[in-house]
């Protein structure tokens, strides 16, 4: 009786494992492979307890295959598939934006927002705005702050390193070439017309992202008040950006203090 129960349980575990294994159609999916292995391991132990030697033997064979496969896969991942391809993808996003990052921090911010929030759905609007808060309040070039922040969000220190380097590379190379050129002929290239049109496009870009963000973050009249105050104090009173962001943060502490949980 006891043995029958154990057997039944083992069978169930085995089926669950099989399910997890079949679910791992994606070769990079080591998680479900691991789950399948763990389940089959349990099933094997139960079969042994139940005294069903033949079944246990069979299962052990499958287990050996799985272990081997998993080992191979985790190895492969590190070397080619998940490793370089994935990393190259992230690298490429930031490289691309580094090539088109005209028009200051907010322009880069909007490009990144479009790429990571709207196209790839990796980060949220909130993440982005917090990155801008950090970039504005901490010292250092704001553009770099924002890029590093997004990289960190994606993959901790290593992601931050990737994003920073990939982002700076195009402008570094272009600048280096221009510097060598300048050294020889001591003139700067005249591309004022191109820059003028780019500036116009960047204006449109920034305004449209601001509208998008307003749509997603405006939850009530209080947000609207803060937004108008921040905008006015920047454009009319010309307050420093650190002061504005800091003050609005303090206002936030006061006005949201009675709410149980922030959304």
């Amino acid at each position, binding site marked *: 009786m006891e043995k029958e129960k154990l057997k039944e349980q083992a069978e169930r575990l085995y089926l669950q494992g099989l399910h997890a294994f079949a679910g791992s159609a994606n070769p990079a999916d080591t998680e479900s492979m691991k789950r399948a292995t763990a389940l089959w391991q349990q099933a094997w132990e139960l079969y042994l307890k139940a005294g069903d030697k033949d079944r246990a033997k069979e299962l052990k064979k499958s287990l050996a295959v799985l272990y081997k496969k998993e080992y191979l896969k985790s190895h492969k991942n590190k070397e080619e598939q998940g490793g370089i391809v994935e990393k190259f993808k992230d690298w490429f996003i930031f490289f691309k934006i580094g090539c*088109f990052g005209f028009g200051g921090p*907010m322009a880069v911010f909007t490009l990144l927002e479009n790429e990571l929030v709207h196209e790839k759905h990796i980060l949220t609007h909130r993440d982005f*705005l917090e990155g801008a808060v950090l970039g504005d309040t*901490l*010292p250092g070039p704001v553009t770099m702050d924002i890029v590093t922040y997004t990289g960190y969000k994606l993959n901790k220190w290593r992601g*931050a390193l990737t994003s920073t380097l990939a982002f700076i590379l195009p402008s570094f190379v272009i600048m280096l070439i221009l510097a060598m050129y300048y050294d020889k002929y001591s003139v*700067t290239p005249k591309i004022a017309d191109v*820059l003028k049109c780019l500036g116009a496009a960047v204006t449109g*870009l920034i305004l449209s992202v*601001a509208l998008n963000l307003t749509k997603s973050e405006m939850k009530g009249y209080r947000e609207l008040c803060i937004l108008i105050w921040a905008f006015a104090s920047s454009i009319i009173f010309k307050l420093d950006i650190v002061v504005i962001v800091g003050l609005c943060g303090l206002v936030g502490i006061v006005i949201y203090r009675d709410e149980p949980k922030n959304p």
Partner: protein
Amino acid sequence: MITTLLKLSWVFLKIGTFTFGGGFVIIPMVENEVVNHYAWLTKTEFLDAVTLGQITPGPIIISATFIGYKACGILGAIVATASVILPSYIMICLATEAIEKFRENKILANFLRGARVAVIGMVFDAGVGIGRNSLVDVKTILIAAASIICLFKYKVNPIWVLLGAGIVGLVCKG
């Protein structure tokens, strides 16, 4: 040469650590150091460096590459660029880590909630600021209007918009 590299690195580490705000806020401090103090560049060369910093993509502080190159060749360019980025890299990583850790803290959460909205105001402000400088004639106003429609209504990838605007600028001069 080694001393120049060390000095370069020191100057740009300082600039990367102690300057708040982006873009032009940093320029006077850089000028003071590299033109007045160390005399790596003349005043005209420095102004050209800033102009080049504007016409290349990426942050304006990429002028550091130019200054580094003038002071000490390619190695100087690499050292200057790396030094100016490094402080904010470290600070941002630490700050992000801290935010993740203390996200449950109510005071910090509310602070961020208020500050997030303020940042939207800053984005509007940046748009108006850039617009004031670049919307000078019918052509540029048309481009700006077209890009708002493309981006906000039709969700075109902004990189195409930028590329298109650059091509328009190349084709119709004046």
